[in-house]
């Protein structure tokens, strides 16, 4: 029987087995699956693992997640307050860096695996590894050093420091964030994650100028990834566009998997990657809330045909699926991705 891991390995070789891998980023949906509030859901690694496994069985996609919410990384660095919503992702409410002078005081834990905020993630990873390890890719989410400051001090303050502040202070912060990233990715590797989504919105020229990307982002990306290498690393820029930097990221870092934003032209991404890397065809999942199942299927067909017309190193993906997406649209999307991501579906 073909496993999700087999599909992914085949896609990386440019082959399609029964269908291309179908990745879904469902997080808060897990709470609904278990019938509990989001705040309770993310309090326990067993809940997250159980919901990921239940959703895997229910929808039949090809990946599971160990991510609870993005603010977990801020908690590992001292954040004391997360704001929970009944119908959306938890958010950092108490910034670790309230004032630029807090940067000097920011302390990266020596060993994040012993940090209480990581304990539940480990619990979740252990369950996922036990249940689907080796068969289904287990994803971990890690924020790049260039983007981590945004959840430590807010996007506004980070952009202010980046564009108007002291470069020494900026570099001190980036060094601490990079040190944290190195420890975090090592911890996730040891805990059994297979896919490391390297999230770097500040590595997109939708956010920063190309000159800053070349002079700063690339330098810190290299530092982040240097010790552990790029095996299993996926370049993701938070739903922004990555086409303008994709070639440079391959040449300078050798990252082998790209996760463009839904506003990127997938055909163009495939042409830029030119068979050098695996690529996700990403649906604009905010629209899944209001679209009919027919519209969902039509859009899945459109983006998969656009991508597969250029090359076969392709898988299907979502951004961060909003809580409100109706169940029937999730089914419609995944079924369509399997259909139009198969050799027969593509020919049809």
């Amino acid at each position, binding site marked *: 029987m073909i496993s999700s891991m087999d599909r992914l390995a085949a896609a990386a070789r440019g082959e399609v087995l029964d269908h291309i891998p179908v990745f879904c980023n469902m997080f808060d949906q897990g709470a609904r699956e278990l019938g509990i509030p989001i705040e309770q859901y993310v309090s326990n690694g067993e809940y997250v693992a159980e919901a990921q496994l239940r959703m895997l069985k229910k929808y039949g996609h090809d990946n599971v997640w160990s991510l609870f919410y993005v603010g977990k990384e801020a908690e590992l660095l001292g954040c004391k307050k997360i704001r929970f919503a009944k119908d959306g992702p938890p958010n*950092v409410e108490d910034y670790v860096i309230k004032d630029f002078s807090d940067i000097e005081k920011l302390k990266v834990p020596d060993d994040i695996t012993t940090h209480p905020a990581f304990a539940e993630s480990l619990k979740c990873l252990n369950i996922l590894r036990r249940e689907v390890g080796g068969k289904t890719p287990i994803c971990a989410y890690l924020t790049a050093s260039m983007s981590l400051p945004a959840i430590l001090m807010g996007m506004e303050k980070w952009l202010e420091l980046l564009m108007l502040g002291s470069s020494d202070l900026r570099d001190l912060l980036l060094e601490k964030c990079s040190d944290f990233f190195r420890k975090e990715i090592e911890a996730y590797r040891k805990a059994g994650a297979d896919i490391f989504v390297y999230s770097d919105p500040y590595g997109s020229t939708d956010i920063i100028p190309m000159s800053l990307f070349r002079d700063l982002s690339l330098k810190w990306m290299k530092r982040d990834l240097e010790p552990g290498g790029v095996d299993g690393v996926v370049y993701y820029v938070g739903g922004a566009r990555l086409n303008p930097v994709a070639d440079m990221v391959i040449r300078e870092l050798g990252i082998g998997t790209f996760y463009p934003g839904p506003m990127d032209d997938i055909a163009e991404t495939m042409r830029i990657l030119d068979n050098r890397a695996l690529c996700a065809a990403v649906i604009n999942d905010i629209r899944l809330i209001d679209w009919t199942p027919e519209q969902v299927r039509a859009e899945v067909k459109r983006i998969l045909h656009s991508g597969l017309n250029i090359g076969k190193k392709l898988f299907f993906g979502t951004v961060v699926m909003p809580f409100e997406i109706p169940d029937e649209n999730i089914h419609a999307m995944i079924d369509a991705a399997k259909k139009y991501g198969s050799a027969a579906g593509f020919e049809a």
Partner: protein
Amino acid sequence: MNVLEEIIESYNKAVFDTDRATAIQVVADGLDKGVSPEDIVFKVVIPGLDLMVKAISEGYDTNLAQHFMTAQIAADITERMLVKFSAPPKYIGHVIFGTASGDLHTLGKRIVIGCLKAQMIDVTDLGVNVPAEKFVDTAVACDAQVIGVSAMMVHTARGENGALKVRKLLHERGLEQRIKLVVGGAPFRYDPELYKTVGADAWAENGVSASRIILDCIAEVAR
């Protein structure tokens, strides 16, 4: 090229290059050469904002850092010039701005407010996580023409306590002809029809363009 034209060209280049220091120096040089503070604002800064809006609308590849710096530079220079005006400036409207209930993201708000201030629009910044009632009550108290609601997350953009509730209150209190509702933030970019779903009169794709859209709304209320 006359002095003013040289200043306009150098200022616009500095803004596009996100070079605040040069933009400020260009303005200082202009003042030294006899350009009035009023001309700096009305013939350099405001047209500079319009140029950025035009560039964005024509598909020129701009980025968030450029928008941030455009607003920052424009607001900064306008503030410096206002104190030098020969007569107190006349504000052309009043906008109440804040993030939706449950939303803590401030960057878009800062960009919009910077651009609005540079265009002689009075702004009341209500901060983050603003209840709908506060938006409406403040707009009435300030006789504002526009309420701007910024939301970076899907659930705060679409939520019942955000723009939807502001619209409901405006309707219930018979204020819809007097006060326009403008929304913005990432979810609206990914779904350009979403502003209608949440009952807004208009939406802006980015913070710089928002000031132009808000100006149009102010003009509409004035009619």
